[in-house]
């Protein structure tokens, strides 16, 4: 079985791996890079737990053929902290008790980051739209929406 060499930036660091044909980016990140922050939730594109940013754009890593990210820049939750400090979104999620089981949290945070990177002061409806591809089974969404609004409002400092 021949492997395909693949190189890309992972949270600012150049990485090189060998993947099998058809390997998705989620498997590549988790099993070959060892970044366990994106989660498997469905493999169908329906839950958003595997969300990552590719060149700043929110994508579902389970539906991304790994070799299509060659030379591109991948951001995951693993790279969200700013040095030792939490990102304002992480702080806001914590302060708003926006996580229970924590399994959807990495994907939610990436979806929220994709929103705030482009739109630093979104409306509540824009926040709802931004997380609409992410399933949370515990919180009822309200604390997540509030957390993202709080982070955007600058009420949470880094």
């Amino acid at each position, binding site marked *: 079985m021949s492997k395909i060499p693949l190189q890309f930036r992972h949270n600012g660091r150049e990485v090189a791996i060998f993947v*099998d044909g*058809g390997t998705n980016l989620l498997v590549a990140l*988790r*099993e070959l890079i*060892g970044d*366990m*922050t994106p*989660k*498997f*939730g*469905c*493999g*169908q594109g*329906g*839950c958003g*737990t595997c969300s990552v940013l590719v060149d700043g754009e929110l994508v579902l890593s389970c539906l991304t053929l790994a070799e299509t990210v060659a030379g591109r820049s991948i951001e*995951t*939750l*693993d790279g*969200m*902290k700013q040095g030792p400090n*939490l990102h304002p979104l*992480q*702080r806001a*999620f*914590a302060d708003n*008790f926006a*996580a*229970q*089981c*924590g*399994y*959807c*949290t*990495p994907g939610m*945070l990436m979806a929220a980051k994709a929103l705030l990177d482009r739109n630093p002061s979104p409306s509540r409806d824009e926040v709802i739209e931004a997380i609409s591809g992410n*399933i*949370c*089974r*515990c919180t009822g969404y309200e604390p997540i929406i509030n957390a993202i609004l709080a982070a955007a409002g600058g009420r949470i400092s880094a």
Partner: protein
Amino acid sequence: MLELRKDIFADERDDNLNEIGKGTQRQDMLGHVTGTSSFFNDHKLQGMLHLKVVRSTQAHARIRRIDTTEAERSAGVRRIIRGADVPVNLNTLLSLINFGKDDEPSLAVDKVRYKGEPIIAIVADSEREAFEAIAKVKIDYEPLPAVFDVEDALKPGAPVVNETYPKNTFTYHETYDHQRLRFGDADAALATADHVLEQRYQMSPIEHAPTETNGAIAAPDTNGRYVVYTSTQALFFSVDTCAKILDVPSNTFHFIGGTVGGGFGGKVDTLTEPLAILGAMLTGRPVRYMFGREEEMQYGPPRGAERIYIKDGVMRDGRVVARKIRAYFDSGAYTRLSSYAAVKCAAHLPGPYTIPNVYGDVYCVFTNRTPATAMRGFGVTAMDFAIECQMDKLAHLVGMDPMEFRILNAYRDGDMKAHRREAKNTALIECVQVAAEKAKWPLREEFKRASSRKDGGGSRAVIPPTPTDSSRARSTNPVQQRTSYDRLPPTVTREPPREPPPTVPPPPSPRPAAPSHGATRFSSVFGTRRR
């Protein structure tokens, strides 16, 4: 928004505490927001293999032949596991506390009882190779008639789903095909009630839908042990279940879990751990078995559906004087935990109200669908739906405000409950009052003044004379449960006497094509006045 009403029941509490009552940050929050909380699948193991199962395409069928020769030769396949490879291929979850008979194989052997039942497990180098091998397994089925409706399953001549329980019902107290509750004389009270209302309610099955699907990774560890990373909601339940199925001492396993991506009851059944461990035992390699999302939705155990009939007698002044309930839990093809749901449900009757005459029969019924299990509100959620819809209809029937109607009938401290224990520490009335206040729902003064701590007990504390069902067999020394640690000799099994199904109004067709809209049914029995 959450408001603490410290003013209510303040005299019963000491609020002078340091840590209790504070909104302290979760211990696991930092892990969650940084993605470092470690779930079962977040363990990378050298040389990990992947396990997938071949599932039944039939709801009910005899298995004539299983041919795995081609699958065994398929690229990347390390091991094909059949039912015969499972050391103890028959189990029931609550056997650990001696409740119920072993009735479910890990891998079906001679018969499948629901669509999606596992028959063969395939351990392969990659998921893709496991999928390719699955396609090469040939199974020859002889289809059998299937039954999907709980009441159809109880009719004479219905297909026998699960031969361990040939009547398609779980056996209670080694005697009855249902769990019963008898308190007072419901029939006599119904005969003299001002209004009688009989209704049918149907709860849907529910999928737990945790964002993390069920799964486990098992790996050979040092000194002959196996480490198991698991999503279980019940660690020792899973340890002991695996020890039983794999017929090894429980300390063979080192289970690690505790951080789980949602459960809601759907991760109690220990479905992935035994096969993952067996795969690791048979290959000497780490093995992962994780449900895909479609597997989780369709073949992972759901909350079982329930069908509930309630017949209530109510007086013109709003007092509910009798409640008669018949409920059917759809357990699917095997028992899992539904047997206990029925017991818990019977104890919950008649809801948080003091009703002097209560009669309940709760059945755990086998059908040819995915076995049901526990879910948030287990045994109670559907009954509360039925009871509370019924209470609303009764209030409407007697022309009372629904809030006041509930306060009037609410149980209070000192009242006798239908399971024959005194009500203590009750607070239903206060909840209704506060909810009314929040919703700006007007209550009359006398109902605002009512209290759970006043006017209970006395005549309400009496256990009313309760007629016995002479037609029924008596069990002299009931021993419903013991822990397996008691080392009791196995109990003798007796066939339960079959009781004729009580007469009921014909249920509406469950298909939306002939809708079971409540409206017409309700109006048909609306205001069935006896006087």
